[in-house]
Every structure is written in structure tokens, then in C-alpha cells.
């Protein structure tokens, strides 16, 4: 680690703290977001996520080594953490810290994009099924049943066979397109309940068109479960990517992701636990932070918790 790297890291930390502080300051003006920041864990989760995202974005500044370079395959394999190698080196003498930082880009990217694909698709399908009911509902939901019944690993293996190894976009799509079934059921249930609510009937009585009713009157009222499911979805996609990489069908080496770092380090887990421990910790940290943020958002967006007349 050079002085520059440390400096960049400290700056990232300050930026994250400052961003959360600024958000919090703005939030104090709005009751519902004040509720978000009352959750201490939610604030911490948001801070940790912001920090990790900044670090991943600023990877070239924070990482002292090329993540894929084997520094010295004879003398520098499985070095324990030190001032030079912050998190040690792996079996191939690559710097774990640098790989973790660059791997964060891939892992967080897949997590966010995969969850985005999954939640958008799930919300759309769930909303259509729940709002229109009848045969649309029957067809879509039987499709979801089929989707849930098929083992995902099997589908992904098939995708690997089709593409020659999975490029990033294909992996995101493959994961996103096989992860929306749960969300669609959740959204359908919400929409089924909401479509008969008085304010939805009132909106229709005012001549509001169907798509506007769905997107303006129904879905915003289902925002809390959708956002929560998105946040949890990012965590799930992250874990899925890790298990795929562990099986050797995820991100292709030498490119680093947190998942394939664990896979790479697994053979030497007794002699060099740091090469699996730290990417594992990163995944755990992100998933826990996301859960905390999801909790906070759920409370913040619940209009029933809003105070009465101000």
C-alpha cells in the first residue's frame, strides 16, 4: 500500500460519511426520511454501502497492484496481511486487497443490475397479473410456477453451454431473468389487495387510464415491499454470483469477483484463510447492510406511520 492508496481510502471514508451526513441533514425536513435515519442500523448500512461503492468506483486509486498480476509466484504466494499486502496475497501471489477492490466492481455491479432486471420484470408481471386477473393472471402465474419449479443452476449451466463462458452482460441477464419469480408473486399479492381499494376505484371514476392507474395509484402504494425485495434481491444475486463462481461458471478468471476469489482461495483455506475470509466478509457486510437499509426503507415508506395533522 502506498501513501496515495491510504490517502484515497481515507478520502473515500470521509466522502461516505459526509454523504450520509448530508442526506441525513436533508432528511430532517421530511418526516418519513427522518424515520429512516432513526434506525441506527439503517444509517450504518447506508454508510457502509456508500463507502464500498465509492471504493469500487475509485478502484485504480485505492488498489496498489494490478488485481490480475501474479507478483512473484515463487516468493510471494499466500503471504499473510502486512503493510505492503493489506489483506495478504493468494495462492498465485496476487494482492487480495487489490482483487477485492476490483472484484467489488464486478460483484456489486452484477448484484445491482441483476436485481434491477429481476425486480423490474417481477414488478411488471406481478402488476399485470394482479390487476387484470382472469386469463392473464392464470397464464402468468402458471409461468411463474414453472419458473420456480425449474432448478436455476440447471438453466444457468445451459446458458453457459450456449455462450462460450458467460460474459458480464449475459451473466447479469441470466441471473436477472431467473430471479424475478418471487418478486412477481409478492407484487401480485399487493396489487390484488390494492386494486379494490377505494382510492383506486375513485381514480378510475375520474377517468384515469389503466396504465396510469397501475403506475401512479397502485404500484407506488406497493413501493415499500418492492424496494425491500430489491434490496434483499441485490444480496441474493450477490450470493448467487458467488456460488456460480465457486462452481466455475460465473465470472471467468483471471477477472476477480468476490465469488471466484473465495473459489480460488478455497484450496488453501487452512494455510491462507485471508484469501477467502476477506471476500466472504465483504459479501456478508454488503448483504447485512442491504437488509438494514431495506428495514429502514420499509418503515420510512409506510404512510400509516406518518404523524397526524402538523
Amino acid at each position: 500500500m502506498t501513501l496515495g492508496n491510504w490517502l484515497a481510502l481515507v478520502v473515500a471514508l470521509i466522502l461516505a460519511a459526509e454523504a450520509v451526513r448530508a442526506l441525513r441533514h436533508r432528511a430532517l425536513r421530511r418526516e418519513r426520511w427522518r424515520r429512516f435515519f432513526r434506525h441506527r442500523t439503517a444509517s450504518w448500512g447506508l454508510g457502509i454501502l456508500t463507502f464500498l461503492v465509492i471504493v469500487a468506483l475509485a478502484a485504480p486509486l485505492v488498489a496498489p497492484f494490478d488485481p490480475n498480476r501474479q507478483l512473484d509466484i515463487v516468493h510471494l504466494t499466500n503471504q499473510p496481511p502486512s503493510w505492503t499486502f493489506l489483506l495478504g496475497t493468494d495462492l498465485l501471489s496476487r494482492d487480495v486487497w487489490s482483487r477485492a477492490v476490483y472484484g467489488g466492481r464486478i460483484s456489486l455491479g452484477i448484484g445491482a443490475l441483476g436485481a434491477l432486471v429481476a425486480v423490474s420484470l417481477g414488478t411488471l408481471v406481478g402488476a399485470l397479473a394482479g390487476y387484470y386477473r382472469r386469463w392473464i393472471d392464470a397464464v402468468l402465474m402458471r409461468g411463474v410456477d414453472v419458473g420456480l419449479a425449474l432448478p436455476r443452476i440447471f438453466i444457468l449451466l445451459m446458458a453457459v453451454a450456449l455462450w462460450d463462458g458467460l460474459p458480464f452482460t449475459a451473466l447479469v441477464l441470466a441471473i436477472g431473468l431467473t430471479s424475478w419469480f418471487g418478486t412477481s408473486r409478492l407484487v401480485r399479492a399487493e396489487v390484488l389487495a390494492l386494486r379494490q381499494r377505494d382510492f383506486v376505484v375513485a381514480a378510475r371514476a375520474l377517468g384515469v387510464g389503466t396504465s396510469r392507474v397501475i403506475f401512479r395509484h397502485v404500484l407506488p402504494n406497493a413501493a415499500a415491499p418492492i424496494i425491500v425485495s430489491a434490496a434483499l434481491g441485490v444480496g441474493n444475486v450477490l450470493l448467487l454470483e458467488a456460488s456460480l463462481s465457486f462452481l466455475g461458471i460465473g465470472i471467468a478468471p483471471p477477472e476477480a469477483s468476490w465469488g471466484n476469489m473465495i473459489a480460488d482461495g478455497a484450496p488453501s483455506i487452512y494455510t491462507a484463510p485471508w484469501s477467502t475470509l476477506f471476500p466472504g466478509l465483504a459479501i456478508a457486510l454488503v448483504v447485512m447492510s442491504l437488509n438494514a437499509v431495506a428495514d429502514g426503507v420499509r418503515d420510512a415508506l409506510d404512510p400509516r406511520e406518518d404523524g397526524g395533522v402538523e
Partner: protein
Amino acid sequence: MTAPVLLRIRDLRTYFVTEHGKGTARAVDGVSFDLYAGETLGIVGESGCGKTVTSLSILRLVPEPPGHVLPGSLIEFEGRNLLTLPAPELRGVRGNQIAMIFQEPMTSLNPVFTVGNQIAEAAIIHQHLSRRAARARAIDMLRLVGIPDPEERVDHYPHQLSGGMRQRVMIAMALICHPKVLIADEPTTALDVTIQAQILELLDRLQHELGMAVLLITHDLGVVAGHADRLVVMYAGRVVETATTPSLFARPTHPYTEGLLAAVPRIDAPRARLHAIPGQVPAATAWPTGCRFHPRCPYAWEKCVAQEPPLLDVADEPGHTARCWLVTEPERRVAKR
């Protein structure tokens, strides 16, 4: 009545398929009436008589499934049958020419949008106003319905308003496009009595200012007495009596109407046990044969069980009709019980 007919309803039948597909609830079963321009028509009846389903049917808001309006029903508005209108044209009528306010102001507003946004929505859709212009209109409407500090209230969320205020907001939403017909489905039932009076006065005032016809649906005879020009009494999915308000209160002809009026406590009468109509409304899946009121009617005789009367004209009172054989055999009006 010289005013033109705005809304002509003929033989409206709205049925519901009950759970498990076992039976059909005939919630509205052959209802006909006219709404004239500028008048207030009250529809009265107890819970489950089909008032609300009638009002929802007019704008095709009956939840489908399980409900459906039978073919052959007619709801004619300005020469067009609303029941067969294509969806885009129907949306052009909803909120623009026929608007509706609902019973529960607490749940009829979308909790995640400001009241200003919701009031402005209809104006943006139907009159293609810009956001800014629609907001200004929303503020005007809030002022019109008597909400203090409209510039501030426009940005409030529904949960920040009281029940009476929310009902005023609902009225503002419904009236922003100056509809020709306002359907008010129990607009005051969920409010306390002083607020009820304010809301009804507000509706009266707006009706005169905007010159619209109001279809006032209620179970409260006190409400219609002071505010409706004509009344339609419904029982068991049927119209049982229609009359001008004074004539209905002076000479209720159908025994059901009679029972309803007798059940209203009077402040000037000696204190006695309140009158109640015996029995309960039968289930909508199995209406009685003949006159649907006969099991509860104190005057019923064999003919009432066998044959349902048509709406018969009451002598000497134009526009007063009752679905009762007593109109032809008045000497039978002697209580058995």
C-alpha cells in the same frame, strides 16, 4: 318536469356470481329511472338493496369478476349507452361529464400523493392542462369547497387532513372538470352530524353554482328530505316507489316506504318505542316470489305472493309511482299484525 333527461336508466341488471360459483346474487334487478338536468335525485334504501351497485354500474366500476351488468340493460347519457361505450370514450365521460364521490373519505384518497396532485389529475387528463395550471386550478377548487389556506393545504397528504376536509377534497376532485352529473354515494355517512350538514350545504351550493344534476345515494331519509327534489326508493334490487320529495313524505304509498318513514324518530312526537320493519332483507341469491317485500309486509295477501306488481301510477299525483297492489286495491291497507 320540463328539464331534459340527462341520464336514462332502463332495466339495469347487475348480477354477482357468488363464491364457489354456486349462486347468482341479483344485486340490481331491473332498475329504471331518469335523472333530469339540474335536479337532485335521491336514491334511498337500506344496506344491500342495490343502491351502491346501481351507482357503480353507471360508470362501469362494478368489480368484474365477480360482478357483471347483464346485456339488455341501458344507461343512456347524452344519447350514448355507457354500458357499450368503448373504454377510451368511457374514460372521457368518467370524471369529465359524470363524476363520483364515495362514502369513505378516509380511504378514497391515495395516501402517497398530495391532495393537490390528486385534485389536479382529472384536469390534466381531461383538459390537458399543464402541471402548473392544474395546480392553480386545484388551489381554486380547494378554495371553492371551503378549505382554509388552500395554498398551503394543496401540498398536504391525505393523512394530514380530517375526515370532513378529506370529503371536501373528494368533492374538489370530482368537480374540477365541471361535470354535468355528480353521483354522491353516501357522501356523509362516515362523517359526524355537524360536518354532514356542512358537506350537504356545500353540495347544494356547488350544484347551484355549477348547474349540475346530483344523484344522492343514501340510507338517511333526513338527508334526502332537505336536499333532494325527487326520490327513488329501492328494495331488494328493485325500485319500489318514485315520487317528488314532498309527495313521498306526505303520502308514502309502498308499505316499505311507509315503514322507513315510520322508523325515523321524530322530535315532535310523544316518546314511544321506535317503529321497526319486522324481519330482514332477504338474501340477494334468493329473492322471494311475487312482491319481494311480501314476507315483511303487514298488508300482504295471496296476490302479493303470487305476482309481482309493476310500478303503478298513484292517483292524482303525477310522477308518483309505487310497485304495490295496494294502489289498485287501497281498501286492503289494513294491518294484519
